[in-house]
């Protein structure tokens, strides 16, 4: 049985995050694109919606909450997973209340994110 490939977008201004997550997430056969700048990622998203967006919450020019809002406004079915550098209840609550699928705190292992993505993909397919 052939699974449908998921399109995943990773946004983090730390370039190592994208560099490592791309091969890690592609292992499940999904399509992964990585971005270091929020604006570029949003521009890409405008052209073609993604199924799952993994975004850092705190970046120089545009913050993760804003990215979350703009993506959901474009495509409400997209699952947005927020990466926080410093997990606080407030940030998590804000992200979830604004429609984030889940959040993950740095530092995390690739498997931690894969597990969340697996849940997201399950929801997408159901």
């Amino acid at each position, binding site marked *: 049985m052939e699974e449908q490939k998921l399109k995943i977008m990773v946004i983090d201004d730390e370039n*190592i*995050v994208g560099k490592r997550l791309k091969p890690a997430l592609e292992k499940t056969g999904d399509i992964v694109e990585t971005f270091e700048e929020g604006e570029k990622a949003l521009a890409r998203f405008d052209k073609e919606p993604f199924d799952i967006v993994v975004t850092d919450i705190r970046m120089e020019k545009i913050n993760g909450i804003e990215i979350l809002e703009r993506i959901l406004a474009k495509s409400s079915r997209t699952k947005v997973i927020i990466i926080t550098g410093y997990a606080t209840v407030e940030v998590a609550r804000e992200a979830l209340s604004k429609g984030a699928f889940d959040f993950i705190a740095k530092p995390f*292992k690739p498997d931690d994110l894969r597990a969340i993505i697996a849940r997201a993909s399950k929801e997408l397919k159901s």
Partner: protein
Amino acid sequence: MTPPPELPTLTDDSEDDENLKLKERPSISIRMTIAISYALFFLLCVAITISSFWTISILEDKIKFLEITDNYLVEIQQARRFEKNYLLYGTNLDDALEHLTNAKKILSANSKTIKKIMGEKIFQSNSDYMQKYHDQLLKLGGEKKTGKIDDIVPLLRQYGGEMVSSAEEFVKKERGSVARMLMMAKRVPFYFISGLLVLIMIFVIYLTQNLMVTLKRFMDYTKRIGEGDFSPIVPAKKFKDEFTKLAEAFNTMIRELNHKHSILLESHKLRAIGTLVAGVAHELNNPLNNTLLTAEMLKEDLTVLSDTEKIEMIDDMINETVRSQVIVKGLLDFARESETTIKPLKIEKIVSEAIRLVANQVKMAMVKLKTNFEDNLPGIYGDEQLLKQVFVNLIINALDVLPPGGEVCVDIHKNKNSDFVVVEVEDNGPGIPEHIQSRIFEPFFTTKGQSKGTGLGLSVSKGIIRKLGGYMHLKRSSESGTIFMVSLPAIESPSEMMSKK
């Protein structure tokens, strides 16, 4: 060259030395000054009274003497009248002789008093004249029958005249002197009272001036201490008095305050460290995450990765570890407990380090931080940690009031009119309400609420800057933003600073 300011530390006992020095001063207390002044007034009164008594007793003598001389004068005048009567009308010459004898008796009976007042010389000449006159009178009596009186009469008249005029003149002089003494006796109390009044006025003015000036100085001391300058008091006077005791008490208080202030400083620093730790923890998570992700992927793909890829990943891990180390070191440098050391510093370096420490807070607050440092800034004297604390505090304060998108600008320039280097921390936040602007430097005054602020930041910062001989104040605060200004005395030339190093 600007001398480096002294920062008293916990173990500093220079104040003790100061108090010892105060104790060694010769003592002239205010109480003693007053006592001595009263004693002087009393002695003056005694002297005046004694001199009055003395004047009066002299006057008594003089009046008594005047009576005697009056009698004496009357007697010799009588003698001369009878002498003239005798020559004119041939009356009895014995009457003249009798009065002359009376005069002689008066003179000899009171010779001691008269000599004392007249002086030996005048007394002698008077008696001589009288004796000569007496001799001539006797001669006149003897030559009465012969009628050879032509030789005697001129001599008689001459001696008699001299005798009388000398006595008269003397009596006149004596009366004059009595009158003068009386006049003086009348005036002395008046002079004395006026003099006393002037003296008392001078004393009162001196004492109040003295007290007022010293009180004013102590008022200035309290202001200075309130501003966080804990250097000991050195009274201006050379002598020890009640104020010296007060100064000693002040110095003891200053030492206590300084001690407590150091504790305050430490607790404030801990507070700042607490704030920074949150940011540092946050910042550390990035390199940690990068390292963790890289290590996990390396392990996962160990067999499929090429050597070049493996080396790249290992290099990433090394670099991210070094990055973590730098982050931790910044905080450690700031938190490290160290003795306060005043040394020449480059202000722009200190401010840059402070900015790096708060970089994460700036990021979290989503605020822009701009810097504007003038070129060729002169050096300053200061303690690295304390100064960093001041600027970290100022920037964090600005971040606390800024909404996302706000701006903080740190500007360093040399004041053109004075030898000060000025650091201005400006934000475009909502400003400090006017009614609390005057209170922001008070210790424990906070608008942030107990959970967020201790109310010590600005007061401690101001204390630190004050100790370094600088100034810190609110330059401007309005709805369009706030500027805090820190001025520190510049070391004269940058080259001087370099040569010191």
